[in-house]
């Protein structure tokens, strides 16, 4: 009985913290936007009736409570630029971004796990050190520099221009690069790949020195299951902590490669001062990240009793 109570208390605490921090995040978004000099209705030239229907004539605190309530029910109001509902806009633009984010995570996973294993197990190999230097150097660059370096290389070596959509008789490489180059750039740039490799490498090195690995090695056992659990746990932590930075990089990548996703929407709404769209996108992003963090805490709590 006591154990069940502990688990219940843990879940209650985590969900409470989730709700309170979402409330604080909504407050941060709303009050920073309301720092705008002048009235939102005046900036966009709205008529008094429209402004009243958007509750713009009310007191700021009642507006905040109304907006927060609506935001938790995923109702962010209309876009100020073209009048469509923000939720519809987000659902239209989101698939591109989700595809991009998942693709880039898969790419950096596929690349970083073997690299981290090699770097951790052969620390004094000349080629391993050289390639680790290269990986860190490449991934510490900003996304647009990486993107244009790769694009220029492809342009000069393969003579294709992957920013253009491919035609029917375009070479196979063109279609491949057009589809996957944004994911590759997002997976490499902004420090994503370097961070993945470094943290996984550290975890594998620490696990490699543990006593149970040494005894398993002495017994001649198959080592993979012994490595799997600690590396998986740290990997979930890294994945969640990099996700926020990944969504920041999406803005630049979608600008470069002309993909209409959430990043493009954010950039466009910042230029147009389309406040409701920006607030909606920011709130939804924070919500997704907080849900991921909650899931990560619960998974780690379930998988590893020592961290309780």
């Amino acid at each position, binding site marked *: 009985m006591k154990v069940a109570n502990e688990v219940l208390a843990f879940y209650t605490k985590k969900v409470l913290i989730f709700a309170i921090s979402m409330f604080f995040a909504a407050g941060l978004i709303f009050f920073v936007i309301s720092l705008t000099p002048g009235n939102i209705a005046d900036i966009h030239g709205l008529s008094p009736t429209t402004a009243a229907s958007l509750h713009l004539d009310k007191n700021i605190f009642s507006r905040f409570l109304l907006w927060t309530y609506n935001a938790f029910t995923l109702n962010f109001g209309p876009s100020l630029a073209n009048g469509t509902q923000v939720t519809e806009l987000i659902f239209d633009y989101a698939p591109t971004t989700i595809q991009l984010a998942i693709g880039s995570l898969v790419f950096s996973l596929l690349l970083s796990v073997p690299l981290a294993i090699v770097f951790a197990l052969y620390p004094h190999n000349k080629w391993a050190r050289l390639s680790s230097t290269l990986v860190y150097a490449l991934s510490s660059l900003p996304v647009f520099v990486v993107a244009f370096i790769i694009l220029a290389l492809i342009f000069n070596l393969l*003579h294709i221009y992957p920013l253009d959509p491919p035609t029917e008789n375009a070479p196979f490489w063109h279609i491949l690069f057009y589809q996957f180059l944004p994911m590759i750039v997002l997976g490499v740039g902004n420090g994503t790949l370097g961070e993945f490799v470094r943290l996984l490498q550290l975890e594998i090195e620490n696990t490699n020195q543990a006593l149970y690995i040494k005894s398993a090695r002495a017994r001649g056992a198959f080592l993979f299951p012994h490595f799997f659990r600690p590396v998986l746990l740290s990997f979930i932590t890294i994945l969640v902590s990099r996700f926020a930075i990944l969504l920041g990089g999406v803005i630049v990548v979608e600008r470069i490669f002309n993909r209409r996703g959430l990043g493009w929407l954010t950039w466009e709404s910042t230029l147009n001062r389309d406040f409701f769209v920006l607030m909606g996108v920011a709130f939804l992003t924070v919500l997704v990240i907080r849900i991921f963090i909650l899931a990560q805490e619960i998974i780690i709590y379930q998988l590893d009793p020592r961290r309780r």
Partner: protein
Amino acid sequence: MSYLKKIRGPGKKRILFGFSVVILLIFSAWIGPHLTSYKVDYMDSAHIMEPPSLPFFRSFLVTQKGLQNLGKNSGQGPVSSHTQSSHSPVRSTKSTQVKQSNEYSNELPEQLPNNPSTSSSINSENTLNEDDPYAFLESHSSPTAAPTKQTSTSASADSQTSILNSFLAWTKFFQVSHKHYFGTDKDGRDILVLLLAGAKTCLIPGLLVCFIALIIGVPLGIWSGYTGGKFAEVCNFFASTLLSFPQMILILIFICALEPNLYLIMGVLGLTISPRVFGVFKNKTELLKNTGFILAAHEAGLSKFRILFLHIFWYQCRTLLVIQFSLIMAESILVETTLSYLQFGTKPPDVSWGSIIEGSRMAFFSEYYWITFFPSLAITLSILGFYYLGDGLNARQRARENN
């Protein structure tokens, strides 16, 4: 040299590299603002000038076949339709144009810049039309603006594989007094001077970011690590709330609400980085809290302030401070150039490396590659310099702790 030999142990090369990059940046930030005035005859806004020392790089970066194939593989988008209609004819008539310009080069008057003050204005005004990315190339290969100084390089482009030609170009570097060692951009501005002027915009906001992030993160981290309890929990809560915002989106919210002022943006960036600094210093203090010398200092009746400031912060955490400083500097340069690329960062009178690249990003795929090659090299070097400085110091620190 005897001083250099004293730097031993792991991370030596990384620290030296990072330190030299930092000195170079400080030097260029100091000298850059003094170089931004031009004499009229130094500028040539009609022509782009090639840097003298780069025929060797050119053979790597720009292949003639790549330029010829520019429009072949493209589809039916707005960009490509333009390419097929107008770009390939220009390329095919290129050789005849070169001959023409060779013949008439003596008759053409020297084109002086009409209005130097407008040409030395900012880069972001000259952004390329998105529907028409190759207008940049065409304007310089049209017969009316036939380049006079460009002819020799264009003619030699056909036989660029010849070793003798590239050797002659190398010797030319020593014979002729070139004024533009990194070439000029399409407004006749020297790339080297632009880079030197941009160093200031990347260094000083970075210092502001470091100041804000460290002054929030370090005291809160050390205090909540040492005392623990309710205070630490509240700090943790706010840190995790701030960390769940993507950096760029929080900055864009501030930009949307207020004027896009670079120093405001850098303040927000410092705020978003401070939770990470807080976490690092909190973990370090929690490790140190139960070590013997801190307990002894506590038993000896030293004040809490003295223990926290002198014994924990100054004796144990100052290397950590320098490491965090250089890592934050690297990140702030990254964010500053990215924001300038998105046209939210530096404003017109100032130059930023990101906005140079944004203003002529199609130059990556043209023969005028040096306009974007040198700024991206500068961004790469400065970020890597700070990153390796922090990394090398970290490696030394870890080695010292293990012994």
